[in-house]
């Protein structure tokens, strides 16, 4: 299984979690992003994600590498849906395993923040009133510019 994946099919969460098992890990942290039923006061019926696949995968792998190096976690993976989703569907899943909980939480947060800032993925919201709109999020830099206070070298074995 690739560490960073784009898929138009539902995600097998149990499988993705099992892939991160490591006897050295004492903590596992996951984040799930779901499709919400409103955005900025407008009732949302569903949305579609479109990705520039080769660049999204390369950038996603870079983000996972950065998280592992910054926080010394043992394993990390992420999957982002593309195509049509409805309210309640899982849009993104991130999982991290690490020796201790602190680095697992921090790496998980880093990965979702950087995905939102950097991945070439676009979201078109469909509203209950029949209108649609491309959602313009912020563009650009890294969400985490500074080395975090708890950053350390990856565990070496």
């Amino acid at each position, binding site marked *: 299984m690739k560490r960073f994946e784009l898929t138009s099919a539902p995600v097998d969460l149990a499988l993705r979690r099992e892939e991160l098992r490591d006897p050295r890990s004492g903590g596992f942290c996951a984040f799930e*992003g779901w499709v919400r039923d409103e955005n900025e006061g407008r009732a949302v019926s569903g949305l579609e994600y479109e990705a*520039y696949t080769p660049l999204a995968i*390369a950038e996603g792998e870079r983000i996972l590498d950065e998280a592992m190096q910054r926080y010394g976690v043992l394993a990390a993976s992420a999957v982002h849906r593309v195509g049509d989703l409805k309210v309640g569907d899982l849009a993104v899943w991130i999982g991290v395993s690490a020796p201790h909980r602190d680095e697992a939480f921090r790496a998980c947060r880093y990965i979702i923040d950087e995905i939102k800032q950097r991945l*070439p993925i676009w979201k078109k919201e469909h509203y209950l009133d029949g209108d649609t709109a491309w959602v313009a999020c912020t563009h650009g830099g890294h969400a985490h510019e500074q080395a975090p206070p708890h950053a350390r070298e990856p565990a070496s074995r």
Partner: protein
Amino acid sequence: MTRVNLHYFAQLREQAGVGEEVVDTNAETPHELYAELRARHGFSLSADALKVAVNANFSDWQHALTDGDTVVFVPPVAGG
């Protein structure tokens, strides 16, 4: 003239009316190329709202375009 491949996404795809096209251009950089394409397709986004990727890597707007380059103008992203 330089022949480049263009792939469009999100609102740029909708405004161009196509997902991709091959263009022969006198533009020497992505910056010049975007100005040319914006005039032709009526793109609403200005270049400073975009990033650019050449051959599937984020690139500089002053990158020297060469024959066969694949260029993607990246509108504001919204993953997650």
